């Protein structure tokens, strides 16, 4: 019996079309737009101005508070302007436009492919370096990694969990990374273990990636305290709380952080970024992005510089198919449709999914038939049908009592609803309002 999390979950068709496609380097774009808010927390403050020459890897926006990160230039060239442009939601956000000229990297960055295993930094030096390199959780939530590595006072991490689950259908960027950069990821894991002073790390991988499980299990033998566990395919296993439950059997209490049960969760992509930052002095300015979809002629995995327009990725994967209904940044379950193809790739972009019209359309909204499917699939044990009504009727105090803030927005409820009710839309709305109420109460 393979392990998985206890409550709820769904199993959408996997559609991992690009699983056997090697990671390719995407050609350099002509211009990039690098937003200053690519992470959870305060936006970074731009420190370059129009006309400045920048090199690849140079800091162009500085972290403005503890929960914030540095932003580095992903290309070399000249700063065209510091201005606003529409982000994936269509709202204008500040960012830095750079005209690309050549590809001149900062000298201290080691560009060789050679594996460097040894490191002799102590915990706080590692955290400092990770902070400087602008590393955020690459699983999609983009929470600054250095914040995660410093547990709140009086708490101690016991185990580091690595998320190699990639439970979103279609996406294969983590899968490919595990196959192609297994050693690097494992060294990254060792660095993270040192930074947090834990003895044990477990990499969780879903059973639909047997090659990655086999490879990492084999390689992990050479690294102290690292083990690999195969998990049953179940969405949303990549959720922090679900992964902890699946691997350790522990349940994170409502409203608490994973550290409350002694766990810290990090993505395998993040571990690779940590390896590059510590061993190669390379800040986070590029990542692996899956470009896929049923109509895409060449589903691919690209290594992409942050700030590259989505249209370039789509072009490289064979162009926009004719009957594209939605272009989604991220996976089909939690990703968001983007308002235009000019939107840049950011640190949190794990995939670009070109959904066909038929599969992207929402069904007609019908009445709730009280079948209870949303309740049975909710991985957080909530009652989505009720939370939706509470959001709709603006009964936010009751929504708070019904633990609306525990919702991880995985979308399993909306996915499973036979009446196509926009459950998550209203829950997210209620969550926003309840969040406002909680914050105003604290003031």
């Amino acid at each position, binding site marked *: 019996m393979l392990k998985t999390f206890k409550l709820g979950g769904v199993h959408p068709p996997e559609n991992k079309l690009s699983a056997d496609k090697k990671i390719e380097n995407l050609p350099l774009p002509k211009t990039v737009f690098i937003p200053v808010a690519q992470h959870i927390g305060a936006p970074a403050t731009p420190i370059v101005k129009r006309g400045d020459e920048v090199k690849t890897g140079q800091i162009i926006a500085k972290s403005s508070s503890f929960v914030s990160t540095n932003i580095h230039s992903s290309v070399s060239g000249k700063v065209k302007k510091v201005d606003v442009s*529409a982000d994936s*939601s*269509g709202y204008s956000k500040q960012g830095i436009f750079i005209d690309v000229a050549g590809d001149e990297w900062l000298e201290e960055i080691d560009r060789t492919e050679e594996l460097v295993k040894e490191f002799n930094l102590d915990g706080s030096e590692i955290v400092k370096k990770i902070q400087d390199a602008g590393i955020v959780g690459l699983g999609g939530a983009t929470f600054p990694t250095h914040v995660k590595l410093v547990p709140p006072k009086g708490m101690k991490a016991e185990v580091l969990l690595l998320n190699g689950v990639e439970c979103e259908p279609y996406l294969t960027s983590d899968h490919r990374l595990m196959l192609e950069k297994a050693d690097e990821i494992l060294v990254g894991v060792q660095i993270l273990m040192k930074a947090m002073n834990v003895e044990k790390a477990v990499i969780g991988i879903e059973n639909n990636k047997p090659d990655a499980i086999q490879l990492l299990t084999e390689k992990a033998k050479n690294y102290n305290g690292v083990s690999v566990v195969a998990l049953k395919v179940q969405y949303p296993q990549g959720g922090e709380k679900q992964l902890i439950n699946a691997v350790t059997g522990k349940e994170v209490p409502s409203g608490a952080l994973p550290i409350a049960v002694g766990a810290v969760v990090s993505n395998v992509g993040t571990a690779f970024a940590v390896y590059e930052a510590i061993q190669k002095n390379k800040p986070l300015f590029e990542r692996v992005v899956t470009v896929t979809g049923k109509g895409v002629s060449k589903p691919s995995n690209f290594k992409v510089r942050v700030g590259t327009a989505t249209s370039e990725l789509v072009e490289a994967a064979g162009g926009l198919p004719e009957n594209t209904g939605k272009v989604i940044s991220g996976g089909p379950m939690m990703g*968001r449709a983007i308002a*235009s193809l000019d939107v840049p790739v950011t640190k949190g972009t794990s995939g670009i999914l070109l959904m066909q019209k038929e599969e992207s359309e*929402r069904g007609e909204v019908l009445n709730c038939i009280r079948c209870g499917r949303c309740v049975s699939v909710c991985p957080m044990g909530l009652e989505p049908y009720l939370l939706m009504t509470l959001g709709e009727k603006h009964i936010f105090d009751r929504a708070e009592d019904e633990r609306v803030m525990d919702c991880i927005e995985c979308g399993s409820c909306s996915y499973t609803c036979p009446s196509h009710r926009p459950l998550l*839309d209203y829950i*997210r*709305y209620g969550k926003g309002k309840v969040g406002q109420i909680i914050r105003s109460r604290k003031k």
Partner: protein
Amino acid sequence: MSIILYTIATLAIIGASAAVILYFVAQKFKVFEDPRIDEVEESLPSANCGGCGYAGCRAFAEACVKASDLGDLNCPVGGAETMESVASILGLEAVKKAPRVAFIRCNGTCDHRPKTNSFDGASTCAISASIYSGETGCEYGCLGYGDCVASCEFDAIDLREGMGVPLILDDKCVACGACVEACPKNLIELRKMYPKGRKVVVACRNEAKGGVARKSCEVACIGCGKCEKVCNFDAITIENNLAFIDSDKCKLCRKCVSVCPTHAIIEVGFPPRKVKEEDKESSTAK
């Protein structure tokens, strides 16, 4: 027989003693309530809309009775008439407030503002605005799902299905401000009401730079400042690439309407002008 007598006697004694106890308790815990509160409440429209800033008509009545002058208190629904009757009950002087009316500062109807994408989530403005900037290139404009229509207790907003922007019916609007709260894009403003429903107003909230604004909507304010220069009454201010006409200062001279290059400033309720065809178009479009 005697059982019945005993029962009646016992019940009578219990009843009498309970009455005595209740009388003294009632005296002890008596709460004095100004009888004028009830009187004032009765004279109010009982809409309980909260337009006065208080939680319902009762709370407003209490506030009126407590107040020493009515300068800061106004029932927008009842208007001057109601406030006069309140003043006469309380023996205070009624302060006349200019009536106000709500206005949606967006003229981005479907023919002015091309659709650039589509949203198929829950059809409320609040949810749409929290996820996306809208279905057009303008991130400031009306979303058209009608959260304002739903919030209006007085049936004063017409959704105008298919037009893209609802219309406020001046004769029904009581300026309670519910729609102002409901609009996630902050488009609705309570403006001074002029006779015959006349208005001169910048029907735009776009704060983007001129070129960007113009690209997203034909009738967007580009912040050129021509109206500010031509205004003789200092009623127009430009902030963040957007003009704003202060309705308390505006004298309805309409000079700004004719200089506005994008027809973002519209006039409503005026007889049609003779020469300028375009102006007429924009005013009838509203």
